[in-house]
């Protein structure tokens, strides 16, 4: 539970920093928020990894949530374009990121495929 709370914190800090990166183009004072947000997010992400979440899982969820939140909030705050095709693209990206992340998780929890000989290769090696 703790690692998921930490991951949520990392995501929120990172989205805040990314939006500030855009805001700093008009108001350089936002660079303070950029620095604090990214340093804080990176620190919390390191804590997430230390709490036992695999790099691929943490990074995947971080990336997927960040893409969606940033696109929506950038459209709200800065009037950036958010068309239907872009919406489909963002949905595909999130699906893809989750596939990479869930695939990595299930592959890691399964026993390694090469550590034991398969029944078929044993049959081939046995005298008939």
């Amino acid at each position: 539970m703790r690692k998921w709370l930490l991951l949520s914190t990392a995501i929120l800090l990172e989205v805040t920093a990314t939006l500030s990166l855009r805001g700093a183009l008009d108001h350089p004072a936002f660079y303070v928020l950029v620095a604090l947000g990214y340093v804080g997010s990176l620190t919390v992400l390191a804590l997430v990894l230390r709490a036992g979440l695999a790099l691929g899982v943490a990074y995947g969820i971080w990336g997927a949530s960040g893409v969606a939140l940033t696109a929506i909030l950038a459209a709200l705050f800065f009037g950036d374009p958010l068309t239907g095709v872009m919406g489909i693209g963002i949905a595909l990206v999130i699906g893809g990121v989750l596939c990479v992340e869930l695939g990595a998780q299930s592959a890691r929890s399964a026993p390694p495929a090469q550590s034991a000989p398969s029944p078929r290769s044993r049959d081939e090696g046995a005298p008939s």
Partner: protein
Amino acid sequence: MTWAYLGAAILIEVAGTLCLGMASRGRGKRWLAGTVTGYLAAFTFLSLALNGGMALGVAYGIWAAAGVALTAVATRVLFGEPLTKVMGAGIGLIAVGVLCIELGAGH
């Protein structure tokens, strides 16, 4: 030029993430220094891409998604982490999604 900046931001960010992976495997503070340097440089290049007029949703979406796909491939090569068919399909989805974001934003 904005696309070159974005490409540089993606590659440097993947390098920073791999350094973070090394640091989390107990390889010492040198790798954390690489992580911090890499992320700082990546955000600088991302800022340059935004300064060149790229929309934040486009730049960030492509940056993050390409980073996920490249990191999955790189951790397979460097750390021997698994890369399954589901993960391969995910990388394909990311590529198509990035293309949609790019086409939908452009013109």
